[in-house]
């Protein structure tokens, strides 16, 4: 087995000891990045930008691997230098100059302010420190409840999914939960979940508080390949917030398995800017592990 195949899969410059600097030699080990004209972008790049734009400066955010992590790295370099990324297994505010593939990987605490424990960061969330939590889901319902546990019956599932991980905790304890659904379709946006892993607004206004979840917390946005959704303040039902470039209201409706609240004038999401794309491609993921 050649050296090429060994220990790959880390982010830029992460492949060699002591390489904070870019290791040019490593480039040879990886396929050349696809080159897209500055004005064109992929679906993943758009998703990353939409998520990054939600992240405010000087806030703490629970970050998982994949899109949220890229978004956090982009946000830090673009508009939120003081954003603190917190990883579930204890990495707090790492440099994010290379990309982890596991939420416990070294990159989650590379030049971080602390490397602690799962209990420590979950307790910080329970005390109210974590503003944002980013979660994925196999299914999402009109109240932003999420399923990552099973498709079908729990005892004999058609598809056994991983389970809550930290998802249920994030949905319970962060102030604002952002759900990521890269493939917006009626099998993902469903009237009824097969299993409610993570609490959104449960069955409507006041339900979270009645259940004992911290007041003022809950679902905030849903980011999909078609649009960004938020929630109606009175009914707590999912509402169209803004459409992705080139997408129509009708398209979003057709791809949502429940009645989506559609306001008079839904907003439009700007395509990734030249600046965002430059940072994303050159600084965040130059070796195109994800994008």
């Amino acid at each position, binding site marked *: 087995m050649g050296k090429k195949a060994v220990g790959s899969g880390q982010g830029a410059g992460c492949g060699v000891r002591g390489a904070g600097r870019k290791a040019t030699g490593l480039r040879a080990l990886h396929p050349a990045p696809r080159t897209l004209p500055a004005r064109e972008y992929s679906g993943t790049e758009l998703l990353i930008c939409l998520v990054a734009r939600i992240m405010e400066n000087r806030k703490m955010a629970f970050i998982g691997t994949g899109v949220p992590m890229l978004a956090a790295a982009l946000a830090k370099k673009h508009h939120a230098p003081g954003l603190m990324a917190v990883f579930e297994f204890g990495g707090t505010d790492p440099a994010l100059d290379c990309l982890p*593939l596991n939420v416990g990987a070294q990159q989650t605490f590379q030049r971080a302010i602390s490397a602690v424990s799962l209990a420590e960061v979950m307790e910080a969330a329970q005390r109210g420190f974590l503003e944002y939590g980013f979660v994925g889901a196999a299914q999402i319902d009109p109240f932003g409840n999420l399923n990552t546990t099973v498709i079908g019956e729990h005892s004999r599932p058609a598809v056994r999914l991983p389970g809550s991980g930290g998802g249920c905790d994030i949905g319970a304890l962060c102030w604002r939960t952002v759900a990521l659904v890269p493939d917006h379709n009626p099998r993902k946006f469903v009237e009824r979940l097969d299993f409610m892993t993570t609490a959104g607004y449960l069955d409507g206004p006041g339900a979270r508080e009645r259940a004992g979840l911290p007041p003022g917390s809950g679902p905030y946005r849903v980011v999909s390949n078609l649009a960004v959704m938020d929630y109606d303040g009175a009914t707590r039902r999912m509402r169209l917030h803004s459409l992705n470039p080139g997408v129509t209201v009708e398209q979003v409706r057709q791809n949502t398995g429940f009645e989506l609240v559609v306001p008079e004038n839904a907003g439009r999401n700007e395509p990734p800017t030249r600046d965002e794309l430059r940072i994303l491609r050159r600084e965040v993921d130059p070796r195109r592990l994800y994008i």
Partner: protein
Amino acid sequence: MGSGEGALFVRPDADGFREFVRANKPHSPVDKRMSEREAVRRFVRPGDYVATDLYGMVRAPMSLAREVVRQGPGDLSIAGQGGMDIDLLVASGLVRRIDNVYIGHEVFGLSGAFRRLAAAGKVEVTEWTNAALAWRFKAAAMGIPYIPSRTMLGTDTFRRSAAVLGRCPFSGKMLCLLPALAPDVGIIHVHRCDRFGNAQIDGTYGLGFELSRASRRLILSTERVVPGSAIRKVPERTVIPHYLVDAVVVARYGSHPGEMCYEYAMDRPRVDEYLEATRTEEGTRAYLEKYVRGPRSHEEYLELVGGRRHLRRLERACRGR
């Protein structure tokens, strides 16, 4: 009120734990170095509840997980907390009960083994969350029977757990009461420890702090054994003191094919091979034969996957601090 419908695999027993500790735990330093074979033979028995640290392909006690599969104590219960070690135990068919938190491979996809076992109804699953598992260990570590929390409320995760709904005696608000979890055996891979088991971990310690204190028996595997003086020089770095530890197993590259921070990088092709193999039952069987039951020890396993030269490359591929 109410409680989850999931099975409670280990009943909280704070008094029993105290008595176990008094009768069985090493209160003064003794040399606990032993082979992986001896450690597993002595401390992992059929029907035991096993828990491990850390997560994913990171600092997972793979050499000990492979030895457990080799010896094959069946009917195990596990804390299903996402590591490749746990996935290997599930794939081996030794597991009957899972306190599930997350079994999968993050960006690499679903667990083939867990998926097949669950679909066939061959495993009993109670659902929990990352925080719930950490706090269940914490309660056991504190020597108390349960701990109140604000997670899981209102969800099916709660309904399929063995947690209990309670009311705060001070505010009257609803709480999720998590039963203490004291595994029969905890298994943790560390960067270094002395022969008594005083251990240091670099980087995040995940569930290691709580798990080491919650476990009735604790097996450490370690990249290196260091002199006691090296431990005493920086006592604040000791995450796991010797009195918690029952066995010390030297296992250089013990997390392979996963990574060990500041030591060696993930062996991506070997990880991919595992993921690919465990997609099917036949693949799983072949993998276990070749990589787990084939080699008789961790040393033989390391030779099989490429030996010293290959492992040195993984070291070079790992980034420093």
